[in-house]
């Protein structure tokens, strides 16, 4: 039973890994399209981790780009000094940990706030982080850091993206994960049922920050150039759009939306004059026709198994 539940995910991950590897080996995926794939991978990590905070735990955060920038800068500073694979891995780990720590520090006071108030507070936090990087000497101010060593290839990208997905999925299928979801559902009831809501809000928030830090470190180690402006308010909104479009409370929704939006925006790059207009019009259309997001709060696996059981039932009825 347990094994069968994990099988679809394992197959999907394996097929994805082999497919991209084969496409790259045969030269169908060139450097330009690989950059698109890297962006998709990073966006998947960003969107699923924000979904943990906003979609599953119900804490509206507008500061995800801030955590991403902490990961990006920490990793950049480490790989500048130590441009080796161990240095890169250390950079990812340190970047993620630093982001998670800031997540705890920011989360403890701000997570008392709800809804719009929390959104404003997290927005302010991300701006503070950006301004700090803008003014620090070590981060080279507005010009940012460039000519950083590049480490991310398909293997690393796959490892971190798939790892994030598996860990988040595991967490949400555990007792602490369910406690986080209960906070979204009804905070007062959750607290009365023995759930320390503050603890789980801060847990979800800093875990989300951790993975955003991973995404930032991967960004640094592929695009080898970072500056504070990359991690502004617009970046946070971009991530939020993926989450809302895919469905609040659906990891697979975030993955599908991250892939879809990046493919569409890559395709639209051929029409630069109308690109943003078409993109925005499409977002409006999706929200009008599917306000709950592509997948709502269900996962692909649940949708498929529901369809299958329906087909099974119909087949049985026809036999009778």
């Amino acid at each position, binding site marked *: 039973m*347990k094994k069968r539940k994990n099988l679809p995910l394992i197959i999907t991950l394996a097929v994805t890994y082999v497919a991209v590897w084969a496409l790259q080996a045969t030269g169908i995926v060139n450097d330009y399209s690989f950059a698109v794939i890297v962006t998709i991978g990073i966006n998947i990590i960003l969107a699923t981790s924000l979904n943990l905070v906003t979609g599953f735990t119900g804490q509206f955060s507008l500061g995800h780009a801030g955590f991403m920038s902490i990961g990006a800068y920490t990793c950049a500073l480490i790989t500048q000094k130590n441009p080796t694979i161990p240095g890169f891995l250390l950079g990812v780990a340190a970047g993620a940990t630093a982001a998670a720590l800031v997540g705890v520090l920011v989360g403890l006071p701000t997570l008392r706030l709800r809804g719009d108030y929390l959104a404003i507070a997290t927005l302010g936090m991300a701006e503070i982080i950006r301004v700090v990087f803008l003014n620090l000497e070590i981060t080279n101010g507005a010009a940012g850091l460039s000519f950083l060593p590049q480490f991310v290839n398909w293997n690393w990208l796959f490892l971190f993206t798939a790892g994030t997905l598996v*860990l988040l999925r*595991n*967490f949400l*299928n*555990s*007792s*602490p*994960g*369910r*406690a986080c*979801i*209960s906070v979204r*559902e*009804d905070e*007062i*009831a*959750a*607290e*009365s*049922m*023995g*759930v*320390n*809501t503050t603890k789980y809000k801060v*847990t979800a928030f800093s*875990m989300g920050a951790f993975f955003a830090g991973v995404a930032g470190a991967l960004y640094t180690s592929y695009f080898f150039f970072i500056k504070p402006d990359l991690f502004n308010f617009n970046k946070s909104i971009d991530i939020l759009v993926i989450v809302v479009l895919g469905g609040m*409370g659906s990891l697979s929704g975030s993955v599908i939306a991250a892939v879809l939006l990046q493919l569409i925006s890559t395709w639209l790059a051929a029409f630069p004059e109308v690109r943003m207009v078409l993109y925005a019009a499409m977002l409006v259309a999706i929200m009008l026709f599917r306000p709950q997001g592509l997948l709502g*709060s269900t996962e692909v696996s649940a949708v498929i198994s529901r369809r299958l059981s329906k087909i099974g039932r119909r087949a049985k009825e026809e036999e009778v």
Partner: protein
Amino acid sequence: MPILNVENLTKTFGGLTAVSGVNLTLESGELVGLIGPNGAGKTTVFNLLTGVYHPTRGSVTLDRGHGAVSLVGKKPYNICKEGVARTFQNIRLFRSLTVLDNVRIAMHQNVRYGIAGGLFHMGSYKKEEQALLEKAQSLLSMLGLAEKSDELAANLSYGEQRHLEIARALATDPALLLLDEPAAGMNPAETAQLTSFIAQIRRDFGLTILLIEHDMSLVMTICERIYVLDYGTVIAAGTPGEIKTDKRVIEAYLGEDMGNA
């Protein structure tokens, strides 16, 4: 031996005294009613007992047989850990989660594996999750909700939602259960069924129960003692028989009802 002892409980909101000098004692295993007109402060008393509000004055002590514990100043989740569970007047289920998950979340405090165990599904994760699932399923089948276990809470009928709220409270493994208007919105047949349901869970789980209720048929049938609250103070306490004939109660609240009670 009293399991719950409330002395001089007072709560003021600005200039308004919602609860004033309330004394309550619940013996272990008792089923006690808390009645009173709308706005008398009944739900405020529940919120004070469960830590949603902190009392302005007064003491609340719980004694499960191994020493008295003060509940004043404790957070709701800690009071839950001490063994006090509640339901809500306006149902507060985890609506977009399944019946099973509603119950499993309430069992959360007994899970020993932590966040790392949850992330990596290692350590005692498998064993504990299996035990949790079995415990939740057996509780649901005891309470007649087993068939609904994969249903979303929001899709249950009103009566079933009331039952699930009680099931979820029981899942926290309480010694004292506080029921806030469990029969609200039910018809007489459903109320009669709920009455026997409450009697059954009290027996099966060895509970002490304090319940707020407007439905006099339910209160008078199953409560051994009743406290009557009016304008935040206890105006009478006693057996259902005594309450029925108490002049102050009739004046404050039961006057019209007594003719057909």
